[in-house]
């Protein structure tokens, strides 16, 4: 195991930030920590990094207890903070060189790693720019570059795509996959379920400091009763028709918010076919019809009773 967390408890006065949190991360995984803002993701990361005192629990990294003095462990960890943490007075190159230099003593190796990182993050043409001249997306990329330049075995990315444009977000996610393919184990925290779903091999959903579900995205979706979500666009449907629609087999709920009818069904066959037949039979005029599989938000919603985005 690369990381092992057992019964981690962290309190801020009366508030329990982490409530007996336990999880393990295997080598080569992209492990997603998914949860709404304030759920305890960053607190858990700070405890793993031995920045934050915790009340109870054990943390092991690379098979050894993590302490502030465990420099041999720290040497193999790269961190990309939620907030951009770079020197405003240093250029892109100098920033990466500075942080890489805290891990790598050999000057030639350091130079090579810095060049590789600049290339990897696509910052070559901005190498002499100061952070203030970079766009939000480029700044995030610089933040990532400073955390990964020393080629760590474990990379922790704490919400690295917050306030980033879609193009930069895709580049960042693509970069994370590449790092993983080169052998790095990754911990990725986010409240964007689409991102987590897109890149993580295993996900832990966390809420109010508690782990509420852990598994692959398929495993997580299999945990809930929702099988399909069918949306029908219609401007003319009566209350009686909606009530009859709800009587169809496997249909769990029907909600109408003009012009969309949202139908949720449990797992089962021919759900979409049954709905289509009903609409035809009832002569309900309709526009678009589409069906979606459950998302991690649905998983979160079913387990906690609230939206992940709340």
């Amino acid at each position, binding site marked *: 195991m690369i990381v092992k967390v057992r019964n981690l408890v962290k309190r801020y006065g009366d508030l329990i930030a982490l409530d007996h949190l336990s999880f393990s991360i295997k080598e080569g995984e992209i492990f997603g920590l998914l949860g709404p803002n304030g759920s305890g993701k960053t607190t858990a990361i700070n405890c793993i990094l*031995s920045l934050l005192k915790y009340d109870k629990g054990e943390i092991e990294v690379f098979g050894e207890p993590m302490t*502030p003095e465990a420099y041999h462990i720290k040497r193999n960890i790269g961190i990309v903070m939620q907030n951009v943490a770079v020197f405003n007075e240093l250029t892109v190159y100098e920033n990466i060189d500075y942080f890489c230099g*805290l891990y790598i*003593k050999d000057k030639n190796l350091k130079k090579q790693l810095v060049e590789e990182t600049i290339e990897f993050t696509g910052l070559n043409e901005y190498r002499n720019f100061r952070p203030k001249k970079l766009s939000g997306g480029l700044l995030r990329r610089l933040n990532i570059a*400073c955390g990964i330049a020393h080629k760590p075995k474990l990379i922790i990315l704490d919400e690295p795509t917050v306030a980033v444009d879609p193009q930069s977000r895709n580049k960042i996610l693509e970069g994370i996959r590449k790092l993983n393919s080169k052998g790095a184990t990754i911990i990725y925290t986010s409240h964007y379920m689409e991102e987590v779903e897109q890149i993580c091999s295993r996900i832990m959903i966390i809420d109010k400091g508690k782990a509420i579900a852990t598994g692959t995205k398929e495993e997580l979706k299999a945990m809930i009763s929702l099988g399909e979500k069918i949306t029908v666009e219609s401007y003319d449907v009566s209350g009686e028709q909606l009530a009859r629609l709800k009587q169809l087999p496997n249909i769990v709920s029907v909600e109408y918010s003009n012009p969309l009818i949202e139908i949720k069904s449990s797992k089962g066959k021919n759900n979409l076919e049954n709905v289509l037949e009903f609409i035809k039979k009832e002569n309900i005029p309709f526009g678009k019809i589409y069906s979606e599989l459950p998302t991690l938000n649905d998983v979160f919603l079913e387990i906690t009773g609230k939206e992940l985005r709340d």
Partner: protein
Amino acid sequence: MFAHIFMNRLRCLLRDKETIFWTFAFPLALSLFFYLALSNIGKGETFQEIDIAVVNDSRYQEDLYFKTALEEASKGEDRLFDLTLATEEEAGKLLENGSIKGYIKAGDQIELVVKESGMYQSIIKSFLDNYSQTFKAVETVLRNDPKKYQEVMESLKDRKNYVKEVPTAGGKPDIVINYFYTLIAMACMYGSFFGMRETSDIQADISPLAARINIAPVHKLKAFLSSICASMLIHLVVMLALLGFIRYVLNIDFGPRTGYVLLTMVIGSITGVFFGAFVSALVKKSEGIKVAVLIGVSMLGSFLAGMMYIDIKYLISMNVPFLSWINPVNLLTDAFYSLYYLDDLSRYALNIGVLSGFATLFCVLTYLILRRRKYAGL
């Protein structure tokens, strides 16, 4: 690792325009302002010879004692009067057109004619009164007991001095230099901006940048030491430049003890940097609030040390001496003052000793706060 952090830190600090402004440009501009505003202070008080006239008639020519006394007072570099011999009519015209402050008519009763009263007129009158009294005293003695002539003359020479002479370091009395000393002391304390930055960039609970550095495999205090050495170097160079500017461009004299002046500056700078480091470690507020605290404390200290009004320094020293001893700006100002004016170094040593104590205290307290490796909250 030390060199890596040190060099990068130098780069960061030299490019930090705000810190450079407060630590260098601001004191430099203020010193120039002081120079322009205060350069005439003292010059107005330089004594100028008083233009007078004496009515050159037979009474004056015959009164040899008075004539000699007046001529003596109008001779040499340190003369009291610029004397003109004139007729009474000419003297009246000279007085009328302002060429002289007054004119004298010799006789049994020496007369002074002035157009207005003022400092110069008082000096002329004082001189004449003094002459008349002395002359009368000698005349009386000679009339009553001529044998005592020699004794009287000796006693006239032997005037008692009620002012105790203190050996000086050779500095000429100059009220203006104190303003520059407080300014240099304030600039030393502005090193606190460097100290503040160093603490902010190493305390994980203050900034994300510091958190990132804390996660790196570098001993926290080693990283802090490397950074603060860079800060110290820049602050010393800045202070040296400021001192050079004040000494050689503005021609403000610091006396002959250059080595001690530099030592004072070094200790002052160390105190300033560690003061900022301590305040920043202690006050868990935004950078803006910390800057406000540092500027506030430095300015208040400078005010109490007499930067805006020189008499404050003496009022505080006389009435609330404790405040003088806990004010680093005052200790520095007083150290410079002692070096300039006093031959004896004991007062200087006391100031520097107390200041070094403060520097050590700030350093130890900063260490005690910074040595924390884990934080209760971030």
